[in-house]
């Protein structure tokens, strides 16, 4: 009954309108990948000695790694249907806290990391509570929570970087190469993304997160506690922000007040580019990874070609607009 029903009518000529729709759908799904290939080709021709090398590839992945981790968490919030604009601030705060705990409070580094992860999770929980219990729009809620976090950040460190006296063991986390020649951050990126992928696609929590994002009312009437799921999703986002902040602090060897703020835009660009990749405007982890990679390749290529700094901003802004635009178009054509 379930198989034979509709297979008889699939073959046959295709009408012009359909062909156009398929063309759009194809561009929607694979356009970003084509764009990535194109970028790689252009940069390879323009800088044949510097760009297409193994060491530069490692370099790109390394540069992408922290963005990918925070974007992986952001993807969870976006799947559940909420924005999180606090991620950059939470990451910066986490970097300041983790170094501060070690340097000023003398907390052993593993405990410092654990504490900061818990704090990151708690900030996500607070955002989730504001969104679900006070019914504040998530853009406003996370902007507010993020700004408060900036305030606490200043209150804690006075805006001065925590630099000297960071234990070497902590620095080794991001700078080390525990697996033959591969920078640790790349490993962390793949591990985090794999974990988030499993969470979303292979756990009951993940099914619920997808259900809530797809149709909150249907999810509620299916017995799912929508508020709780949303809060948990934002907790995941908070934890991933904290991970990025900690790894950044380890990488640069200090906790700097606004060091990670810039990850906000890059991860949004990555997530939205990803939502238009392989799927019709639906957020997913593999897409997010590809999206983040595209952004990283762009930055890397521009830097190798010696483009002035302002171009990097233009690129960043343009790619964000392009990403959201593509995602929206993909969604529209999937419905048409």
């Amino acid at each position, binding site marked *: 009954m*379930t198989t034979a*029903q509709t297979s008889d009518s699939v073959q*046959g000529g295709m009408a012009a309108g359909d062909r156009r729709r398929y063309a759009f759908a194809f561009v929607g799904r694979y356009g970003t990948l084509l764009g990535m290939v194109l970028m790689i080709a252009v940069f390879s021709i323009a800088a044949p000695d510097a760009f297409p090398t193994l060491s530069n590839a490692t370099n790109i992945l390394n540069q992408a790694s922290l963005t990918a981790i925070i974007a992986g968490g952001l993807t969870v919030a976006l799947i559940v249907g909420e924005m999180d604009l606090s991620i950059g601030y939470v990451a910066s705060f986490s970097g300041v806290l983790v170094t501060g705990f070690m340097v000023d409070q003398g907390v052993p580094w593993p405990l410092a990391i654990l504490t900061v992860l818990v704090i990151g999770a708690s900030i996500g929980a607070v955002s989730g509570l504001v969104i679900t219990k006070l019914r504040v729009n998530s853009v406003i809620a996370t902007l507010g929570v993020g700004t408060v976090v900036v305030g606490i950040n200043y209150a804690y460190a006075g805006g001065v970087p925590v630099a000297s006296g960071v234990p070497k063991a902590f620095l080794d986390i991001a700078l080390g190469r525990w697996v033959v020649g591969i920078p640790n951050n790349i490993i962390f990126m793949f591990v985090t993304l794999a974990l988030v992928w*499993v969470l979303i696609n292979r756990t*009951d929590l993940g099914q*619920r997160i997808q259900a809530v994002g797809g149709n909150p009312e249907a999810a509620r*009437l*299916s017995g799912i*506690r929508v508020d709780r799921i949303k809060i948990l999703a934002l907790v995941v986002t908070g934890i991933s922000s904290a991970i990025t902040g900690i790894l950044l602090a380890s990488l640069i060897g200090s906790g700097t007040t606004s060091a990670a703020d810039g990850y906000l835009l890059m991860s949004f660009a990555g997530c939205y580019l990803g939502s238009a990749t392989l799927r019709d405007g*639906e957020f997913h982890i593999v897409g997010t990874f590809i999206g983040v990679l595209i952004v990283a390749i762009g930055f890397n290529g521009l830097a190798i070609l010696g483009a002035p700094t302002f171009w990097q901003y233009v690129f960043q802004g343009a790619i964000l607009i392009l990403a959201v635009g593509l995602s929206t178009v993909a969604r529209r054509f999937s419905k048409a």
Partner: protein
Amino acid sequence: MIDSVSGPIPTVGRDGATREPGGGGPAPLLQVRGLSKRFGGVRALKGVDLDILAGEVHGLVGANGAGKSTLIRLLAGVYRPDAGSIVVDGEPVTIVDPQHASGIGLNFIHQELNLVPKFNAIENMTLGLPKASRLGLITWGPIRRQADEVARRLGADFPLDIPVEDLSVANQWLISIGRALIRKARLIAMDEPTASLSAEEAGRLFQIIRELGSDGIAILYVSHRLDEIMDLCDRVTVFKDGVRVLHADRAAMTKGGLVRAIVGSDVAPASWAGAPDQGSPVVLETRHLGRGSVVRDVSLQLHAGEVLGLAGLVGAGRSELARLIFGADRADTGTILLDGAPWRPAGPHDAFARGIGFIPEERRSQGLILQKDVSFNINLADLQPLRYAPAIPLISLSRAARRAKEIAQELQIKAPRVTTPVIELSGGNQQKVVIGKWLTRHPRVLILDEPSRGVDVGARAEIHRSIKELAAGGVGAIVISSEVEELPGLCDRVLVMVEGRVAGELTGREITKEAILQLSYAHGQGASTES
């Protein structure tokens, strides 16, 4: 499916007389010839013909997926046909968009009405029309007069200047018709107009439709309710699998003939199964349950294995009562007893955890995650058993697919695969997915709100069979339906609600359409919607 792929289209009215409009009679307002439309691999319309005369009420029926909506969207300019022609007043036209369709007199009222909730009746009726203005400000005087005239023509007795969201669905329908009239409509297509109307309101609508007909306006009346079609329509066209399978004049119309054409075979009328087992334990009981003025002092008992119908006019408080039981709303007064123990639901998740299932009225917006596939939706309500081991939160997708397949088979869900997104299924199959979601839970109580609304005859019979099978397995089922034909034959017992109260109870053979209607109307006129 196989036999209907191509070939000549049988279009003869069953009296044998092919009625060829234009051959002597009045020229048809609308002539559709050989219209075809394909979506991806699905041929939604396979060369259909249709004539609509000025002033006639033309019924269009067919199972879900038969091509009715596609035809309407082609006429409305939402899609372009792949082949075939549309002729209006003898002029071939290519309808480019809904604006254009409206410009040549074709207007469409969809089930969901497309009104702006915060706008009043006048603003909604004139939405999108060029408006006279002075110094950039709209001069409402002439518009208001125009709207008043249309309202009078429709016998609208509600204020035109309050937001339409505060009006009943019936009045919103009048506004939608008014919107078409202000645009000088010559054909108004109506999709399931009575789906949300009470019998009384529907009667009022029919009268308006007949009056429009005598003014020369043609109505294309799309409905699953064959009694209405028989009652109202001058001619009827039946689609099946994208082909016109029947085209009959009023004289040639029989309900049995229509059903045969729609289904392609006879559907045995459901008959009452037997005496309800009143000896079985009461699973759910309410005592003096109330909320505001919508649910008042409702006391009922639901036995295990029983199908209990909740009948009444729209606005009688049936869905509201269901929401109280499912914990979606809180009761002001009274108590709920589950297995004899008092219980105050903390929310849907609480009702859910105690084995109460709820199949909401709006399956697309409340019952399904449309973009997700059949397996995802079916398994959503019960994910725990999909884990590899109880303590490991990882779920097995193959286990999910296996369970979804079992349930799809049991409910005869027609989907290519369990990985097909439910948005691609027909309404009847979507509803079966919603029911299937609860089968995984083995609920003790299942509340079904309008389970077969907008579903074709065949799927309805299958849904009814599923409900009965569930009951036979010990589930206490509550079925809410606005279609009085639906409850006899399905229910062991029916409670008729009027204005939030239980006005009467019918058991077994007492359950008839007439008895339900009598009880519904027993308590005076104001029983319908205005809240």
